[in-house]
């Protein structure tokens, strides 16, 4: 089997492996640390949320993309 064929077959698996081992070293939201006081707009542009204001509540923070 040619190397290119092998790479084509295992490529998706390698990509999934990268996802499973997320590089946290440059992330602002790191397990074990406090959530940063980052203020972001909502996707409709009508409101803002300061992550620091969520203190005192149990929060699930879901980072995702519609794709």
């Amino acid at each position, binding site marked *: 089997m040619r190397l290119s064929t092998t790479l084509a077959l295992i490529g998706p698996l390698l990509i999934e492996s990268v996802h499973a081992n997320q590089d946290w070293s440059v992330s602002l939201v790191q397990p074990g640390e406090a959530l940063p006081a980052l203020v972001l707009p909502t996707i409709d542009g009508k409101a803002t949320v300061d992550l620091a204001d969520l203190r005192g509540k149990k929060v*699930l923070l879901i*980072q995702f993309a*519609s794709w």
Partner: protein
Amino acid sequence: MPVWHEKTRALRESGELVVIGITQEQHPDRCRLYAQWQGIEWPILWDPFNLTGSAAVPVVLAVDEAGVISPGRLDVRRIEEQVVEGWMATPPAKPGPAARRPYPGIVPPSTRAAARSSGDKAQAALSRLLWSRTTGEERLDGAAYADVLETLEKAALAPEADPALTFHHGVALRMRYDSEHRRTGDFQRALDAWMAALGRRPSQYIWRRRIQQWGPRLDKPYPFYDWVEEAQTTLIAAGSVPHPIQIPLSGAELASGTREIPIRNIQNIHPDPEAALKRDSKHLIELESTVCLHTGVTSKRVREPAGSSRIHLVLRPTNGAHFEPAAGPAKIWIDVPSGWNTPRQLLTATSPTDPDAALLAEFEVRPPQPDLTKPPASPTLPATIRGTAFYFVCEDEGGECQFLAQDFEILIRAPQFDPPESGK
């Protein structure tokens, strides 16, 4: 995400749990449509610059009452065990150290005292861009865009600058490209910036996906926005008005991935082989080309030949000119270098439903496949794609209308970036 939405419904409705989404997409309107379609009720925040610094999505983090992010990965298949019975019943952890925050002052400009006082110009520029679509905040005009882009470019080029700044500069360029203050070349510069950032930090999958969104099918992990039509149809059938898509979807954003670009087997006929058609000497139509390279060029581990790309063409009327919709769509003829492959040589641009609107066309090219049993051949880049666009255009209101041709060249260059960071 719909699964998380459903699984957390009871906890959310009882007030025991708050769920917040964050999307790193360039265009928030698409995620807004997705949330409407999926019935997602929790707030979703827009982070196009990836200020949270996530390397990939999806990521679900559990944050306790003390603001501490719980260690360990959450798995939606084990939500009862991990969240409902486990983490929800756990007392808050001792507050840990605050995460690193390179931009502590990313706040709405209307409350930007902290950002101003910090003196960080890049931070202030990002604030202006991020909040420019938010109700009550400053809308950017041409001068403001030029100002923030110059600031971000300087920051990105500074010695020892974090490659995230280069990514941010690219996001800002694409924002201007999508605005009425667009400058020719903004999209290409955005892609160049993203590629340069990714070259420094190849493990950054948020940045990689931003390029792949507009990249060749050979580089697509999945279609990005092929769900949009189904979402709109479903919402309309249910009697709802779908949230509008502000920036039209490109073909690249709808295309599925593939492992092989089809070998050219359609014998197209050149519309003007003798080059007899009158050329557009008055430049009634501006032709802008943007090359989106395969992200494999940032890593020598991927054996995709350098130059494999998707090329975006825009034909934009200038100086009062306009297309004549009744004349049909523009055609584009493509000539690739010897040995290169493209699925078809004769392209049809999008139809001119609006006379003043730009026409779009996309195509993909792939250099000769390397023979891995032999020493590397000479580099395939730079390479030049040549072509001609054919269109029916009218000079202005009541002016002359005629078929014209415009020859063009597209240079495909190797990306420029500094060596990867160690350990990234």
